[in-house]
């Protein structure tokens, strides 16, 4: 490892990120991200999809920095609602709800939020260092990848996302195929033929992923919230005043271990394509419960139950950038959106970004750390504001969300067809929820669809149609072997039961 090189790279990164303009973008991203992330019924995916168009007009570095800020902001916003109103903004914060909200009910919302922020910051810092250390060597390895390796790697990521999704695995795999299918809508790059466009010229460039994401996660979510009657049911408002904000010395002492262990777990799962924050948070919680001196306190407001999963969640969110930036393969739905944003900025993600656009890569890494720091500084004083925001009734909130979505979708291409397609995917998203089909693996497959087809085509062209090529090339064989192993483990009845239990708990 060349530390001098690393140091000069980081200096370049901070020089890029620490301009007044970029700091401002970072601040706006974190602020707006948290603002939207706090709103009930909008997870990070929907929030990023909604805010994405706002970054289109910025220069590439600025846009990425703002997006990274939005990403962290929405993640943190999700934890805030989990702790304060027992409403997980995303699946990863389900764990935080258990002890975080219990703490809040005991009048310790302040320390819960503070420890979540501190843990996230620590995890984010470690994650940033890991990216800086392992990004470049990984990218070098990735440069040697051929079509079979890419195809196998993407298969592994997709299957992993299905295995780790909550609910039926069979349905998750079917959703992946559906995503691949929607991904290839548009003009086939090889033959120039229009596929699945139903004669609509607006679909020649394919479905815009903003449309799919907004429909599935924005529009669809509003519908299921309206069905449930959000105001009456899901929201358990906290009436108690949040007075002392800061954790005690003892709080910090018992949280140290969970934060470290959570960070390690998150870093591991985050780096794997397809795995992610949710599984990290669950694993961390299970581990903390096992090693705790008083496991009976868990579920009743144990601070370790907040510190561990929150750190794990954030470390994973951070390390998910590693496969995204070095291999060009997103590890999660949110990363797929970030990848789409890169493409819109005219950057083809992959190992070459690091050498061709070093200021972009290292600037992004530096801004990740700045974004994490800003989260802590910004959120602790603003907790009161977020609580007020949560009191806005849903009947006022959802027309506003709808308006932002409409503007967001329309601003991408100024095309009315995009709006109509959003309605289509919105209704589908609602049906998916009704049929208990998790849409997150689908959006990942949607982004990977064209890439998978292209790599499959190339791999089979080189091998003259011989499918064993995926097993005879060593790296590709390892990826496929891991994929099959994952599937087998998940089919084992014992593991299956445990997995169902883990998601129920």
């Amino acid at each position, binding site marked *: 490892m060349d530390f001098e090189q690393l140091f000069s790279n980081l200096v370049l990164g901070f020089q890029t990120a620490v301009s007044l303009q970029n700091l401002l973008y970072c601040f706006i991203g974190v602020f707006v991200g948290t603002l939207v992330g706090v709103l009930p019924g909008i997870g990070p995916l929907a929030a990023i999809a909604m805010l994405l168009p706002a970054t289109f007009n910025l220069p590439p570095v600025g846009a990425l920095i703002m997006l990274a800020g939005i990403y962290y902001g929405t993640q943190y916003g999700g934890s805030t609602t989990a702790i304060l109103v027992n409403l997980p903004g995303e699946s990863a914060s389900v764990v935080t709800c258990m002890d975080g909200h219990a703490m809040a009910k005991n009048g310790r919302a302040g320390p819960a939020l503070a420890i979540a922020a501190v843990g996230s910051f620590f995890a984010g810092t470690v994650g940033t260092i890991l990216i800086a250390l392992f990004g470049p060597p990984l990218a070098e390895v990735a440069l040697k990848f051929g079509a079979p390796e890419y195809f196998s790697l993407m298969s592994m990521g997709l299957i992993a996302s299905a295995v780790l999704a909550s609910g039926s695995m069979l349905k998750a795999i079917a959703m992946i195929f*559906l995503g691949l299918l929607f991904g290839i809508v548009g003009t*086939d790059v090889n033959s120039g033929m229009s596929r699945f466009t139903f004669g609509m010229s607006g679909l020649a460039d394919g479905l815009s992923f903003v449309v799919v994401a907004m429909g599935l996660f924005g529009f669809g979510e509003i519908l299921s919230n309206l069905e449930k009657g959000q105001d009456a049911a899901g929201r358990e408002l906290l009436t108690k005043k949040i007075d002392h904000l800061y954790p005690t010395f003892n709080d910090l002492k018992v949280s140290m271990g969970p934060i470290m262990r959570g960070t390690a777990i998150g870093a591991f799962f985050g780096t794997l394509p397809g795995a992610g924050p949710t599984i990290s948070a669950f694993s961390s919680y299970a581990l903390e419960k096992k090693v705790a001196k008083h496991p009976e306190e868990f579920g009743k407001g144990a601070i370790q139950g907040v510190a561990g999963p929150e750190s794990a969640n954030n470390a994973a969110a951070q390390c998910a950038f590693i496969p995204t930036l070095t291999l060009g393969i997103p590890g999660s739905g949110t990363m797929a959106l970030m990848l789409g944003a890169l493409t819109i900025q005219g950057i083809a993600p992959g190992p070459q970004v690091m050498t061709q656009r070093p200021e972009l890569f290292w600037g992004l890494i530096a801004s990740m750390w700045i974004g994490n720091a800003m989260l802590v500084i910004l959120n602790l004083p603003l907790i009161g504001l977020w609580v007020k925001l949560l009191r806005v009734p849903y009947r006022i909130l959802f027309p506003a969300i709808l*308006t932002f979505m*409409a503007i967001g979708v329309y*601003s991408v291409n100024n095309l009315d*067809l995009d709006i109509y397609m959003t309605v289509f995917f919105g209704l589908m998203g*609602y049906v998916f929820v*009704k049929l*208990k089909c998790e849409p997150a693996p689908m959006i990942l497959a949607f982004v990977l669809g064209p890439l998978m087809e292209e790599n499959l085509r190339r791999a089979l062209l080189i091998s003259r149609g*011989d499918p064993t090529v995926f097993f005879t090339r060593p790296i590709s064989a390892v990826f496929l072997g891991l994929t099959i192993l994952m599937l087998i483990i998940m089919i084992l009845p014992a593991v299956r039961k445990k997995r169902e239990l883990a998601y129920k708990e």
Partner: protein
Amino acid sequence: MKITSQENFWGGAMFIGFGALAIFIATDYPFGSASRMGPGYFPTWIGIALVLLGLAISATGFKDQGEGVGKFAWKPMVLLSIAFIFFGWAIDHVGFVAASFVMVILASLAGRDFRWKESIIVAIVLIIGCWALFIKGLELPFPLFWWR
């Protein structure tokens, strides 16, 4: 045979439908061969996979115990769709202000308790806010009114 899990049975049916449609449409595209994949190759295989997975999922509908699909929220589905589609059509024809106003009112009607005055105020505040943020601030090229 009794359907014990509505969501599995109908979920499977949905995947079968999508798969069959994909295969049907893809028959129009040259299939090619494994070594020279035509534009129909990949979608056909995806369609086949979807049909097979759909059959398997549907079959579990006779075995697994489900919670049932429940009622669909038809009113919000219809109202929000109309509101959104109207916005898409109207923004280029009558401008941002009128398009947003109608969309917000239509969408608000889908909520549990609708209040005329409140919705109108929300619409006005939203339009002014979005105008300041998106049209003034981010310079999105939306026409404000039909006379441009």
